[in-house]
């Protein structure tokens, strides 16, 4: 009797051997396997079968693809995300608006955060303001602000470094466009455009820890100089500084662009500022 039972069991085992089929693996094991592939694999393999699709969309899989730092960004975002996959796609293949739409963040493929401050996030002051003439905030298209030379402007943008990838090299870039302004042709504009001082200040608990300064001419930027100039569709993307984001030594970084030399003209040539970006690499 005992012997027979064993035989039956063995038959069942034999059947199971033949039926061995990866689609009969429990779903969490398939998820675990997919979490060890790549995002591309996980997405592609959701087409294999309904079980793979379900396993491939699980949070277990996508959590493993997200850098642990991502919660710092998501916690400052108003949007509701349906799943970890949704978060991944938004951060790595799209862009996420945070702090009440004042900043944008995304990850590059190396998993480093890019943070952009758009023009709404920049503060503008002038040493020699003249009423109604020194800068224009574009009310209808707030995607940039126009600043005239000749008034000693100072544009500042600040971000807490906790938002950026820790222990990562960062480039600071300024996105802008010189504009044609009535009464000034571009030749005159470029020859008379004064250099601007760009400073990158690192803060710890409100105190400046480190400052680096550069003087640049936003119009006559020489591509041979140490600055990297990139022509993007809409604007010029100029790298104006770099720092290593050591979150232990500082907690905020501030970039300012100052017109240090006063020109005789005002209402004159202008720069359209689209924003300041912090690019991890």
């Amino acid at each position, binding site marked *: 009797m005992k012997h027979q039972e064993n035989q039956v069991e063995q038959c069942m085992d034999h059947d199971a051997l033949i039926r061995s089929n990866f689609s009969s693996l429990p779903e969490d094991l398939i998820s675990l396997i997919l979490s060890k592939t790549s995002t591309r*694999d996980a997405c592609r393999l959701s087409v*294999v079968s309904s079980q793979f699709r379900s396993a491939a969309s699980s949070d277990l899989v996508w959590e493993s693809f997200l850098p642990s730092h991502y919660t710092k960004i998501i916690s400052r975002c108003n949007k509701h995300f349906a799943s970890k996959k949704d978060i991944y796609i938004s951060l790595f293949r799209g862009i996420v608006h945070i702090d009440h739409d004042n900043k944008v963040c995304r990850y590059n493929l190396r998993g480093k955060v890019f943070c952009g401050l758009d023009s709404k996030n920049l503060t503008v002051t002038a040493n020699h303001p003249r009423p109604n003439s020194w800068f224009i905030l574009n009310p209808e298209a707030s995607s940039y602000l126009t600043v005239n030379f000749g008034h000693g402007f100072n544009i500042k943008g600040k971000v807490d470094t906790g938002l950026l990838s820790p222990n990562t090299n960062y480039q600071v870039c300024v996105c802008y466009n010189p504009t044609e302004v009535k009464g000034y042709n571009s030749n005159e504009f470029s020859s008379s455009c004064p250099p601007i001082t760009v400073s990158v200040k690192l803060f710890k608990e409100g105190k400046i820890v480190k400052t680096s300064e550069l003087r640049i001419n936003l119009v006559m930027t020489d591509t041979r100089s140490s600055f990297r100039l990139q022509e993007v569709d809409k604007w010029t993307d100029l790298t104006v500084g770099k720092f290593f984001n050591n979150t232990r030594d500082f907690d905020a970084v501030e970039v300012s662009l100052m017109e240090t030399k006063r020109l005789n003209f005002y209402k004159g040539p202008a720069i359209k500022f689209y924003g300041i970006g912090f690019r991890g690499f």
Partner: protein
Amino acid sequence: MSSSSTTTTTTRLLMLKASDGVTFEVEEAVATKLGAINNMVEEEGSEDLICLPNVNGKFLGMVLEWCKKHANNNTNSDKGNDEVNKWWDKEFVMDLDQNTLYHLLMAADYLSGTELVDLLTEKVASMIRGKKVEEIRETFKIKSDFLPGQEEEIRKKNSWAFE
């Protein structure tokens, strides 16, 4: 000097009985590398015979072989052993055919051998990486159960992964 201490310690032996009646006598320290057995030992205390109706003897043997190697290599905890374990793990999964891999994974999962599950899922992942959907279906003999048009829809939604 108590140089003989290592040889005189008596280790408790457990009997593990697989679904096909095959039994294995293993040291407790080896068997408890498996979370499920560790729980049973803690709960049942004195029971020395443990029946495992969901695991076939062939695969239970392989799981225990893995446990034995890791239990032995872990006793002297110096860095060189990590390398030995890694090398041994590599050998262990290298020539596994798909069928064995599947059953071993099911057994390791059932017995809560977390480290072994990690090792085996990594092996399966390496077979999947970069493969086309059709290749995966063929390799693992999986039939698509999508309705007509449904697959196309999912492809469209994840189009970037197919570029």
